[in-house]
C-alpha cells in the first residue's frame, strides 16, 4: 500500500524490448514536493523509465501515481524541423486556449525578464519553433509542460543540446519552480554537480537501481563505480560511507 504522502510509487518495474532487459526490478518512491534526479550512464534506461512512468511503453511491475497527480512532461531535445511552420504561440495553443494564461506562462519561464525591451515575449510567441535557439526551445517546452497546472514535472535531460548560457537559465528556472508549493520535479541528468545542487533525492540507475537517497550520501565511490566503471571518482570524501546504510533515506 503506497504511503499517502507519496506522489509516485514504483515497485518491481521491469521493461523488456525484444528479449533485452532494459530495466530490471526498479523500485523507488517519490514524496510530494520533492525533487528527484535520475542519473546513470548512456543506455542505463533513464529515458525508458520516464516513458514507462508516462505510460508510453508496456512494462511489468507497478507504477502508482497519486490520484491527483497532474503530469507535465518536458521531452528530451525535440527534433523540430527548421521549416515547420508552427509558431511557439500556436504550439502552446494546442494545450491552452486562453491567451492571457499563455502570456503568463511564457513570462514565468523567463522570456520577459531578460528582455531589453518589453516585447520579447511577443517575439518568442511569434517565432517558429525551428527558429528558436536550443535554450529558447527548451523553455518553450517547459512552458508547455507548465500549462494545465501540473503538480509533477518530468524533465528528460533538460539541457541536452542547449548551450552553456541556456543551460544556466534552464536550471535556474527549475530552481525557481522548486519553490512552488506542491510541485514535484523528476529530472534526468548527466551532470553530477547539477544533481548535487538541485535534487533532494537521487536515483542511480544502470538497468537496475544502484542507489537511492539524498545525493550527498547516496552517490559514493561504490555507486559511481557500479554506474560508470571503477575509474569514476567525484565524491571521494564519502568513500567511508556505506551506501547500503543509506538506501531509501529520505522516504
Amino acid at each position: 500500500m503506497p504511503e499517502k504522502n507519496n506522489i509516485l510509487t514504483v515497485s518491481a518495474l521491469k521493461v523488456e524490448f525484444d528479449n533485452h532487459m532494459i530495466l530490471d526490478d526498479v523500485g523507488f518512491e517519490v514524496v510530494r514536493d520533492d525533487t528527484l534526479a535520475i542519473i546513470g550512464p548512456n543506455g542505463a534506461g533513464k529515458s525508458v523509465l520516464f516513458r514507462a512512468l508516462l505510460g508510453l511503453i508496456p512494462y511489468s511491475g507497478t507504477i502508482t501515481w497519486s490520484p491527483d497527480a497532474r503530469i507535465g512532461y518536458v521531452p528530451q531535445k525535440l527534433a523540430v524541423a527548421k521549416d515547420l511552420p508552427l509558431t511557439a504561440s500556436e504550439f502552446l495553443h494546442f494545450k491552452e486556449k486562453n491567451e492571457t494564461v499563455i502570456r503568463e506562462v511564457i513570462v514565468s519561464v523567463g522570456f520577459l525578464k531578460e528582455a531589453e525591451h518589453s516585447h520579447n515575449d511577443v517575439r518568442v510567441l511569434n517565432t517558429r519553433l525551428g527558429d528558436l535557439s536550443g535554450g529558447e526551445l527548451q523553455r518553450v517546452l517547459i512552458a508547455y509542460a507548465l500549462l494545465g497546472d501540473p503538480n509533477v514535472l518530468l524533465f528528460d535531460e533538460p539541457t541536452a543540446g542547449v548551450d552553456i548560457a541556456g543551460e544556466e537559465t534552464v536550471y535556474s528556472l527549475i530552481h525557481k519552480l522548486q519553490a512552488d508549493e506542491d510541485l514535484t520535479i523528476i529530472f534526468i541528468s548527466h551532470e553530477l554537480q547539477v544533481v548535487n545542487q538541485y535534487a533532494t533525492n537521487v536515483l542511480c540507475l544502470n538497468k537496475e537501481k544502484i542507489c537511492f537517497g539524498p545525493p550527498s550520501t547516496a552517490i559514493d565511490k561504490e555507486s559511481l563505480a557500479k554506474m560508470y566503471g571503477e575509474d569514476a571518482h567525484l565524491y571521494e570524501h564519502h568513500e567511508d560511507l556505506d551506501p547500503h546504510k543509506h538506501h531509501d533515506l529520505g522516504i
Partner: protein
Amino acid sequence: MNTNLIYLLTIGALVGASSGFLGSFMVLKRMSLVGDALSHVALPGIAIALTFGINPMLGALVALIIATFGIWYLSEHSEVYPEALVGVFFTASLSIGLLLTPEPDLLEALFGNIDKIGISDGIMVLTGAILIFVVTAAISKKLLLGVVSEDLAKSQRINVSKINLIYLLLVALVVALGVKFLGTLLTGAMVIIPAVTAKNLAKSIKSFHLYSLGFGIVSAVSGILIAKNFGIASGPAVVLSSIIFFIFSYIFRKN
C-alpha cells in the same frame, strides 16, 4: 459563363480546398507520397464500379478505405515504415485496375473528365468536403502535436494511432472526391502540390493551412477554365496550374 461551368468550378473549388487543407497535414507528417500512392488504389475500385454500373466515385472510395486500413495496419505494426511494401501494393492495384477497367473508360479513369460530372457527384463532393473540414478541424491540434512529438501527444493521453487512422481515412475520401476531375494518376498531386506551395510562403500554421487551401482552390479553378477553353483533359490542366504556383512560391519563398 454558363451555369454548368459555374457548377463545375464550384465543385472543383471544393475538391481543391479540401485536398489543399488535408494535404497541409500530409506534408508536415512527411507522408506526401502516401497520398499519391494511395490514389492508384482507386483504379480497381473505379473499374469494378463501372462494370456494375455504380458511381465510380463510390467504387473508388470503397477501394481506398480498404487500402487505408492496410497502410495504417502496416505502419502501426511494423518497426520501420514499410515503404517498399506500400510501393508493391499500390503498383499491384494499378496493374489490376488497368486490366479491369473497360477500355473506353480507361483514359477518363486515369486522367479525369469534367464533362462527366453530374448532380450526384456534386452532392458527394459537397458532403465529403463538409465532412473533411469538420473532422479535420476537430482533430487538427492532436494531429499536429503528434507531428511535433509523438511522446508528448501520448503523454497527454492522445491516441495517436487512432488519430492517424482517422486522418488517413479522410485522405482516402479526398482522393475519391478528386478522381473524376483529376483521374487516379493525378489526384494525389492535389494533396501534395498546394501544400508544398503554401509551405514555401507560410510563417505560421494558420497561414500555412489557409494558403494551402487557397492554392488548392485557385489551381482547381484555373485548371478547369484552361481545360474547358482549350478542350484538354482536366487532370493535367489542374495539376500543371498548381505546379506553376509552386514554381512562383519557390522563387519567392521566405527562408
